[in-house]
């Protein structure tokens, strides 16, 4: 277990990082919690790692209701930040449901969003995986696919995205700031990720050497009182989601003004439930509205041999999450 040796360099600053990362076979090292697992499993084989962990991209800033997370902020620091806890509690909840205390101290926001799928076919040498080795097939498709996606998959790849934080950020409409050799750009979180289609080897729309620098979360004060991150797992802790739901409601005069709803464990990227959100707007947060939104959430689900239970689970999880926050204050 472990891939071929790699070389190590440390970036002096952000621009130095871009330069170093432009060398072929270079990979960014932040917290290292996913990169080292992938390397030890033989799923990736970087020629060198460029250590960006000491760059000053770790600030958590809150102003005018908007939250800005430095991509190198550690998960535990974000979750314990007073402004995050008060104004964006959904983010804190999602982070605290992730991984373990040790990992949260090491892992960064950017690394968490960019983590590779937990699909065992991807992470195990010798198993068919188009994401790891294009053209080798998708072993999960007709193999062990309990973890597989319900939406957004293709016959080339049925892997899911495992980040809890990404699901919460998706529900809150976050944007990502990216820096590359060409300059800086800002894009909705959704556009950071790619569906597998015929090119599952590309998880993201980042070009080579591009660095995620910051995550911007719009004002979520209207949601703060009614948001929840529901993570369904086989064991009570320290496990990736089987299915998860991030839900946030803005209710005025007994009616839903706005809803933020996203699901994890069901798609190759955090799955925003836009149509469910729309169906909730204007309605009272009662059983019928909730059930209707949940039903919409599972429409067009395409289960495989072992993950069919996730359809009912997603439906029920959406209902449960909305019930939790939809009641009277």
């Amino acid at each position, binding site marked *: 277990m472990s891939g071929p040796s790699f070389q*190590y360099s440390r970036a002096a600053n952000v621009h130095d990082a871009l330069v170093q990362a432009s060398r072929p076979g270079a990979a960014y090292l932040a917290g290292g919690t996913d990169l080292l697992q992938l390397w030890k499993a033989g799923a990736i084989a970087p020629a060198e790692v460029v250590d960006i962990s000491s760059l000053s991209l770790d600030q958590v800033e809150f102003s005018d209701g908007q939250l800005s997370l430095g991509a190198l902020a550690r998960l535990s620091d974000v979750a314990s930040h007073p402004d995050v806890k008060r104004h964006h509690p959904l983010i804190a909840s999602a982070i605290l449901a992730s991984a373990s*205390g*040790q*990992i949260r101290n*090491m892992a960064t926001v950017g690394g968490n969003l960019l983590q590779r799928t937990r699909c065992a076919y991807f992470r195990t040498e010798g198993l068919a995986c188009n994401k790891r080795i294009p053209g080798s097939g998708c072993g999960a498709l007709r193999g062990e696919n309990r973890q597989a996606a319900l939406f957004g998959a293709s016959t080339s790849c049925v892997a899911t995205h495992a980040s809890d934080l990404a699901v919460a950020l998706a529900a809150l409409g976050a944007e990502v700031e990216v820096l590359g050799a060409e300059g800086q750009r800002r894009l909705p979180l959704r556009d950071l990720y790619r569906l597998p289609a015929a090119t599952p080897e590309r998880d993201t729309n980042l070009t080579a050497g591009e660095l995620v620098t910051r995550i911007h979360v719009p004002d979520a004060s209207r949601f703060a009182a009614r948001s929840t991150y529901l993570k369904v797992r086989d064991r009570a*802790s*320290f496990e990736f989601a089987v299915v998860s739901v991030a839900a946030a409601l803005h209710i005025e005069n007994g009616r839903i003004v706005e809803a933020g709803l996203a699901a994890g464990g069901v798609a190759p990227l955090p799955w925003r439930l836009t149509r469910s959100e729309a169906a909730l707007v204007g309605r009272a947060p009662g059983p019928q509205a909730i059930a209707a939104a949940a039903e919409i959430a599972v429409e067009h689900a395409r289960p495989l041999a072992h993950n069919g239970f996730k359809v009912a689970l997603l439906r029920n999880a959406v209902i449960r999450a909305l019930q939790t926050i939809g009641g009277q204050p």
Partner: protein
Amino acid sequence: MLPGSSISVSLHINGRDHQLSVPACDTLLDVLRDTLGMTGTKKGCDMGACGACTVLADGRRIKSCLALAASYDGRSITTIEGIGTLNDLHQLQAAFIRHDALQCGYCTPGQILSGLALLDERPGNLEAIREGMSGNLCRCGAHPNIVAAIAEVAGL
């Protein structure tokens, strides 16, 4: 910095400075166990899933098997060897013994380091301890006694 296969690293471990030249791919766990012969920190899975390799880096618990040593240059590391001795046990170590919070002992150093860090977070009840310790696996089933030991030190 140009990329290299062997990196100069300065690590402050249990109060002592170590100047080392480490392979780029070595983790903190590799350095502790194989380079420095500090075998109190255990390798259970080498993949971040079991927590037996837990140490403190600047007082925060981390999994040393996922910590690239070169990336921890200049950091202050605490291992089980830095927590009490046979003749002067740390309060938590003594509690582990009294509560029989161990059996085979292989996960124990990691549980203790993790527990120490958790105590700093002031867990409010047993449930918080259990949740907070869930990154440390135990196959012998010493969990209830581990939690009891931590709870005693926490004054719960």
